[in-house]
């Protein structure tokens, strides 16, 4: 027991040294000031935050529990549709819409996680892909309710009120970016706390050696299930933000290729690092934006980049950095 926990306790491989942390937050807070100077626009940064949050949620499962889900777009898209449908049909309230989206996506993940928690490896991945496609298919074919292939339109985010204060997020890219940033910061803090808790350490132990962890009496299935559920709640939250960002929810946000993109973002940034998925999301969003403005054959280039990453940079950007500093220290 002590041996295993000692390994897990040694240091969370989060890349959380003070300097990195400060750099990341300074960069994020000042985005609206420097991004336009570099030819970008703030909505692009908002997209990075949303995808980054979704990928970080996925990474709780993928990088820190060692379980491969290739269907997280389902929870993302359910979050988006949950928020969009609430705003369109039920109430004009951003916070209630977000709550509905988070519950819809998160509970779907929780229920499905319980169903497949005993599967492992590629079989687990295949089940998550197929389950995700159910929702794509429903959103695609239920034309009257979800808008079908064209997506769900005719809703928009509403000002948010905290008691007497109202915060108008309906206008202005920059204002909405800061709204996203606050939610992102809270979520990331929660994830960090979770990974530092005994529960988070146990997840690491399961990732490192499932059989040994089982012999120590850790209820593996329950831990993986909880990790799956928590991860899908965070991804669903990102999905609701995506719907609010675009005032639009489309079936492609449920499609398995988006699940694949989330996994790619995580791997590009570094699967076993805390901030990797955010970095990966930034790289991915910028690349996609750039390539699709240059050529119609963007799929070829994106696909080729995925393959190159897998073959030559499997540890990702932050993972490589960590390996380099480790070698220097040794």
């Amino acid at each position, binding site marked *: 027991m002590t041996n295993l926990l000692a390994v897990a306790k040694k240091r969370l491989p989060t890349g959380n040294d003070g300097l990195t942390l400060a750099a990341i937050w300074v960069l994020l807070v000042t985005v609206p000031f420097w991004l336009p100077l570099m030819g970008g626009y703030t909505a692009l940064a908002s997209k990075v935050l949303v995808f980054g949050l979704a990928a970080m949620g996925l990474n709780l499962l993928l990088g820190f529990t060692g379980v491969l889900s290739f269907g997280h777009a389902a929870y993302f898209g359910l979050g988006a549709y949950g928020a969009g449908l609430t705003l369109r049909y039920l109430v004009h309230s951003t916070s209630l819409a977000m709550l509905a989206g988070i519950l819809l996506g998160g509970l779907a993940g929780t229920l499905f996680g319980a169903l497949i928690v005993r599967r*492992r490896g590629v079989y687990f991945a295949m089940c998550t892909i*197929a389950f995700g496609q159910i929702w794509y298919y429903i959103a695609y*074919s239920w034309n009257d309710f979800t808008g079908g292939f064209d997506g769900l339109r005719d809703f928009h985010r509403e000002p948010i009120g905290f008691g007497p204060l109202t915060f108008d997020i309906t206008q202005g890219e920059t204002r909405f970016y800061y709204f996203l940033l606050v939610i992102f910061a809270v979520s990331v803090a929660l994830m960090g706390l979770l990974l530092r808790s005994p529960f988070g350490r146990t997840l690491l132990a399961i990732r490192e050696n499932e059989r040994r962890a089982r012999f120590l009496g850790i209820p593996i299935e329950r831990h993986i299930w909880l990790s799956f559920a928590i991860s899908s709640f965070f991804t669903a939250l990102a999905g609701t933000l995506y719907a609010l960002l675009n005032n639009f929810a489309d079936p492609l946000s449920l499609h398995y290729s988006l699940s694949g993109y989330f996994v790619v973002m995580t*791997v590009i940034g570094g699967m076993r690092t805390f901030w990797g998925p955010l970095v990966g999301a930034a790289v991915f969003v910028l690349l996609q934006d750039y390539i699709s403005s240059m050529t119609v*054959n963007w799929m*070829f280039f*994106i*696909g080729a980049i*995925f*393959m190159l990453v897998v073959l030559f940079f499997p540890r990702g950007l932050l993972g490589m950095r960590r390996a380099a500093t480790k070698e220097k220290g040794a």
Partner: protein
Amino acid sequence: MWQIVLFNVTNGLIIGAFYVLMALGLSLILNLSSVINFAHGNFLALGGYLAYTLSPTIGYWGALLVSPLLTALIGVAVERLMIRRIYNRDPVYSLLLTFGFAFVIQDVCRYIWGPNGLPMGLPAMLSQPITPELFFITWYRVFMVTFVIVAVVGLFAFLRYTRIGLRIRAGTFDLETVATLGVNVRNLRTFNFAVGCMLAGLSGVLAAGQLGINPNMGDDLLMTSFIAIIVGGVGSLIGTLFGGLLIGMAAALTTVFYPSASEAVIYAIMMLVLLVRPRGLLGEEGMFT
């Protein structure tokens, strides 16, 4: 009424036949190498396109034989150059590699053959209906189903009665032991991958005659093949066979009574299987769990 039912049953058989060919190839690769080949649907499209390009020169029958073999050759190159490198890594890498590769092939097909659907010319004798009453059953459909049956029987006979087939089946259970017995596992996996791609290419040629060819013709079949494998049970080829037929028939029969639910039925069957018998209908407990 009986004509509508019969029409949909033949449709179910034909669609089920595609599912089966495609899913068997996926299943072969999955069982021996633990790789989910996301590009499998694109190998199918490739088979169709190659047949389209070749048939003016070597005729339909020639293309039917040659283009699956060419697809298999491409599969050998892909396995040797890329997939081989990631066998011993986390499964996430093989998924991402084939996922990216699927994008690449799809765009290459679109670049070479254009984004629009292409018709596949058939020999005149195959496009005739069998009888005037059964106008919807062309000889092509009969031929196709027969061909698929022959191919599937051939595959199972090959796995059952040849030395290589025995090694593939043994490797499915325990690849390490097979390797220590002196079998060249590297070549075995390459060969197995090629057989899987050949099956995809074959279903591509057959599908081309029925549905035409377009760059993403394999995408829908890919997802259904996953479901066929999950329903049938991972690790069991017979299971995949039954899974494919089952969901093909179920979808077709639903079409008779409630057309818009035909795809929902497939997913419902999958959820039911996962709920009641998570290993799949003919899956072995513990093999891939």
